[in-house]
Structure formats: structure tokens, C-alpha cells
């Protein structure tokens, strides 16, 4: 196996909250001794509810936050101690895609400037004509047209803006893209376009993707491996298919069960209560206050991470007992024949339309 793209060991980040003269600050443990490994060329997803620390973790991976403890190695380099030239190289190799395409693009800059800016920083050798050509190439890569170059962000829809954000991230020629909820602000039909685009780019450019999201269906669609976070800790991680068909941690099971719809758990609210404050998490296993299987042992110490036969790692004292009683997720409900036929027709028509559109374009540009 070749070298990992990201290797984090015991990675922690705590923030000081409040405090002042004669008053000690309180600590918020956003990320609490997390271990993770992301292989080259894979898509690794981090999933969890708000406040679980997934965004902080993502920012630690590219040193937008300084870790309080632990280490992160990106492509073999320890990033906690680098500076100058090496930090520049890290900024070139690791790029970020933001959630909100409405607030992450400067409204006063044209698309050519927005996408050209990182080129100026990371490829100063290009003159302005070469830079424009490069911008045009990047826009084509994300499915936009060269004539979009001289427009401003407000002239684009949400999906197109997210494409601009992706083109901007690709400009420096990164090896690793980190997306913090990259599609959650988009409408469903546009979301599917961007999910497909990211998959294509990963394959074409050999990128490694780290995707943070709260939408489990999107995660399943995009990722090879998943880590589930709860209150700053990874509670379960492993291959995507294993996590979705044989979830073992009670929290993972509850998350899947809570998804509405015919495909979801369909079990409605399986969890009572809300996530406790990260300022004051429960002792031992953080999840025990909401866990239907909680026992005395869970309050004592942090549960160790153990590996199951399906290749997932689970941080739970009682997962073996729970696994015996619980079964796998049931197979998906069958779609009606009518719906199935209709979906098939739609795909066919879509493919045919794609083809004629392409032929027309080629006809226009001999």
C-alpha cells in the first residue's frame, strides 16, 4: 500500500471560552484525540450532527487551526511545525471548498479574477494572457463556459457559483480537496450535478477528497470510507458499504434510523434528547446520555476503539452484545415497476440528450 495522504494521530483542538481577570476560562474540546488515515485517491467522509467537531477537524487537516495536541501528516510532512516555503506548498497542495457559494466569493471580482487569484499566488510565472487561458481551461473543467469569465458572482445560480468555487480550488493544482458541506446549500437536482462533477474530477485528476457533510445519503454516494463523529470523537469508521449495511455503533444506527422516507430507518425518532454541550460532555462515552444501550461501564472511561469483522472500527464498550441482538439494515424497499421503468426512460433520454448536445457543440466549433 502506498503512503497515506493524511495521517492524524491523537489530534485535539480545544478552544478557551470566556475567562478574564481572576476567572479561569472554560475549555471547549471541539476535537478530542482523533486518529484517522486517508489513503491517496480515496474519498473520505466525515459525518455528524452540528457541534460534533467535523468542521474543526477539517480545518485542522490543512492547518487553518493550530492543533492543541497530536500530529497531522499530509503527504508525509508533519504540518504542525512547517512555515515559509513549506507552508506555501501545503496551501498549494491542499485546497478547501466552502459550503456557502453565496458568501465565499467576493462579489466585486469577476470570475476571471476570482479564479485567477490563486494562479497569481501559486504560479507567478504565468503572464496575463496565459493566466486567462488557464482560467478558461479551469472553467471548462468544472462545466462552465469561457464567456462566463467576465461576469460577477451575482450573475450565477447557486450551483454555478459552487462550480466557480471548485475551479478556484483547482487553480493551484492541489492533490487534496477538503469540502466542508460542499453540496448542502444546493437544490437536490443541482446537488446531483455537483456530486457527479466532484467524482469526475477526482478520477481525472487523481485527487484525494475529504468531504464533511451531515447528509448521509450524499456521503454514501460520494465516499469510499466514512468516519462518524459525536462530540469531538470518531465513534465509528470504516468502508462506506460496511458502515451503511452493518452499522455497529448505537449512534451510527440511530443516525441511519432517523432518516425520513422509505429508504431511511423509517423508525422515526429513535433518539431522545439532544446533543449535550461540548463544554461539559458526559464522562466516559460521550454518547451514553442518549444511548439506549448505556450501562454502568459506559460512564467510567473512554471506550477503546475495536475492529469488527466487516473492517469497521467502533468505539463502544458494548458493540458486540448489541451486534448480536441487532441485525443488518434491511434491504431497500422495492420500487414499483412503473417507477423503475420511468427512471430508466429518464436516464436513457438524458444520455441521448447529452449526446446530441455534444454533437451540436462540436458542430459549432470545427
Amino acid at each position: 500500500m502506498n503512503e497515506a495522504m493524511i495521517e492524524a494521530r491523537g489530534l485535539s483542538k480545544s478552544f478557551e471560552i470566556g475567562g478574564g481577570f481572576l476567572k479561569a476560562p472554560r475549555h471547549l474540546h471541539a476535537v478530542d484525540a482523533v486518529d484517522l488515515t486517508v489513503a491517496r485517491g480515496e474519498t473520505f467522509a466525515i459525518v455528524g450532527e452540528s457541534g460534533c467537531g467535523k468542521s474543526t477537524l477539517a480545518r485542522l487537516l490543512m492547518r487553518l487551526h493550530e492543533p492543541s495536541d497530536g500530529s497531522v501528516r499530509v503527504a508525509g510532512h508533519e504540518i504542525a511545525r512547517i512555515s515559509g516555503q513549506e507552508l506555501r506548498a501545503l496551501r498549494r497542495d491542499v485546497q478547501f471548498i466552502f459550503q456557502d457559494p453565496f458568501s465565499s466569493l467576493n462579489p466585486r471580482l469577476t470570475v476571471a479574477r476570482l479564479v485567477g487569484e490563486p494562479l497569481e499566488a501559486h504560479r507567478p510565472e504565468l503572464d496575463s494572457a496565459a493566466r486567462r487561458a488557464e482560467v478558461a481551461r479551469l472553467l471548462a473543467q468544472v462545466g462552465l463556459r469561457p464567456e462566463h469569465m467576465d461576469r460577477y458572482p451575482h450573475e450565477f445560480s447557486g450551483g454555478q457559483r459552487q462550480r466557480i468555487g471548485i475551479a478556484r480550488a483547482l487553480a493551484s493544482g492541489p492533490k487534496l480537496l477538503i469540502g466542508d458541506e460542499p453540496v448542502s446549500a444546493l437544490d437536490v437536482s443541482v446537488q446531483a450535478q455537483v456530486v457527479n462533477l466532484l467524482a469526475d474530477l477526482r478520477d481525472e485528476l487523481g485527487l484525494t477528497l475529504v468531504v464533511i457533510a451531515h447528509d448521509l445519503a450524499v456521503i454514501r454516494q460520494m465516499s469510499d470510507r466514512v468516519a462518524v463523529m459525536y462530540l469531538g470523537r470518531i465513534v465509528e469508521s470504516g468502508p462506506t458499504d460496511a458502515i451503511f449495511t452493518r452499522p455497529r455503533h448505537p449512534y451510527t444506527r440511530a443516525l441511519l434510523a432517523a432518516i425520513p422516507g422509505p429508504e431511511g430507518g423509517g423508525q422515526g425518532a429513535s433518539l431522545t434528547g439532544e446533543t449535550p454541550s461540548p463544554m461539559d460532555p458526559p464522562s466516559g462515552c460521550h454518547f451514553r446520555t442518549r444511548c439506549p444501550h448505556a450501562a454502568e461501564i459506559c460512564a467510567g472511561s473512554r471506550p477503546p476503539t475495536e475492529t469488527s469483522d466487516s473492517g469497521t472500527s467502533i468505539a463502544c464498550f458494548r458493540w458486540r452484545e448489541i451486534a448480536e441482538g441487532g441485525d443488518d439494515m434491511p434491504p431497500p424497499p422495492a420500487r414499483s415497476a412503473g417507477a423503475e421503468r420511468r427512471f430508466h426512460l429518464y436516464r436513457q433520454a438524458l444520455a441521448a440528450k447529452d449526446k446530441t448536445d455534444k454533437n451540436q457543440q462540436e458542430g459549432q466549433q470545427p
Partner: protein
Amino acid sequence: MHSEPILNWFTRWGRAVTRADELISLTDLTIRVPGYERPLVDGVGLSIRRGETLCVVGESGCGKSLTSLALIGLLPPALQRGVSGQLGFDGDRIALDDQRGLSRLRGRNVGMIFQEPMSSLNPAHRIGEQIAEAWRRHNPGDGQAQAVEMLRRVGIPAPERRMRDYPHQLSGGMRQRVMIAMALVNSPDLLIADEPTTALDVTIQAQILELIGSLQAGGEMGVMLITHDLGVVAEVATNVAVMYAGRVVESGPVEAIFGDPQHPYTIGLMSSVPALRGPRTRLASVPGIVPSIETMPPGCRFATRCPFAQPRCADTPPSAEIAPGHSVACHFAPLDERLAGAA
């Protein structure tokens, strides 16, 4: 459109609707904007019976929120001037440009919940007081007892003490519960919930959906739930109306919409949602973007993105009832027969 009552329709929310008493019927809602040829919302018709949940589903800009606001006369003034259409409410008929008539309906007969509870609650007042105020608007008494009772019903622990909390002291899920308490304190006939769970985490969303269902169960209240999430629709809807670019393109009982989707937009929308189980395949998306009011095509508004589009789509498709209660606004419905014939 609603030709015959659907008897014995079992909802996922646990109530059998045996009577066809219509609560709301909206006909031909149109919202025009001065200076634009094509209306923003075009000829929308909906109906809700007592005890039923109608889910209005569509993407941003499809007019689903405007439709609900027009129903209660809360459109922004610039749009209110361009409204036409009729509302039947529990036997009464009201023209949608009759502000006074609509404002009488609000509050007492209609409760509302919005997506972001923090911006709908007054941050400077205690939550108990806000619920009691909603009670006092339409009833005698100070409403304190009713507020405590409502907080208990929406599952807020220690309601007497919580009455004195300010909105910022509550979590997002708790705030949404307070909003629901406020919306329901006057026992409205109709609850309009506009993306009530979109800002919430999935485990909290499940709790809120269950709560709305349990408050409705066994009662006479109709619910109009506006959402973009097909999973939520499948979970809670009795009937569904799919909207695209200001029109209802398909509507019918929830089983018909999921089991026999007919409009190309409905099919595209469903194909765009990644699956939670089964094989993982590349998503079939809907190409292109939603037209804006400036670029709205004549005829079928979905034609610019539709893979089945043909020249005749430049004419507006009529809404055809292809099965009892199941209507589709597409020239090619029912789809397989017509397309098989064309190929």
C-alpha cells in the same frame, strides 16, 4: 382536480381519513410582477382535507413559499398587488386579493411554523409570554395556563420553569417546539409548516416530525408542509403537490407520486436523490438551472431542462387527471405509452 373523495386513506401519521370534508381549496392562484410578461406563480390549485397532510415539494424559487404566504395574505406588498385567485376555507369563499378577509383567517384558523425559529421568535420576550400573547389575541384570559399546557404538549420538560426562558437559551430543536406551541395554542384548522426541519439535525428532525404528527393525529387539523426533502414527503404526506417554476406540475396521493411518478421533473428530482441502500450508481441529475422570471420559457416551464422535450412543449400542457386524484401537467402523460408510441 379533486374529483372524488379518497376513502379510507391511511396516513403514515396514523389516522384514517374517512370523511372527505374539504378544509382548504385554492384555485387558480396567480401572482404577477409588474413589468414581466409571465407570472411568478401561475394558476396554482391545491386542496387539503381535514386530518390530512399536503406536502408541497419543489426546489428554491418554485413558488412553494409564495403560495403559502398568498394563502394567508402575508405576501410582501409589491407581490400582494399582483395576486388573483380564490380560496375556499371551510365552506367560505374568499378572493385572494381580499386582505381583510384573509387577515381574519390568520391566527385563529391558521397556525404557521417557519424554517428558522430564531428569526420568528422575539428575542427580547420570554417564550411563555410569547405563547400567551398568541392566545390573548383571540381569547379572554391571560393565557398563562394555556402556554404551560402547550409547552408540555410539545415535549418541553419542566414547562413551568421553561416559560421564563428567552429564545436564546434554547437549542434549535427546542425553539422549533416553542414555535409549534405558539402556532397551535389557538387550535387552528390549518397548520402551515414551511421547511420546519430544514435547519435541524437529522435526529432532531425525526423528533419534530413525530411531534407534528402526534399533535395532528386524531384531530381535525389539516397540515400544509412545504419542503424540498423527498424523504420527509414520503414520511408524512397524505397528498403531494410537486411545484416547478411557479406551477404545480404533478399532484396526487403520496403512493401515486412515489409509485407512479409521471412528470419528467418529478422523475428527475427523484433520480437526483442519492440512495441510502442498494447499489451505488452515478446520479441522474436534472441538467441546467431553473429559469428566472426574465428567462421563463413559453409553454411548459420545464421544457428547457427536460430530456423528453419536443417542439409541442412550447404550448402550455394542460393538467390531465391520469388516475383518480393524480394529475400531471405534461403533454406526454402517461409517459411510457406516449413515449413508446413516439419512439
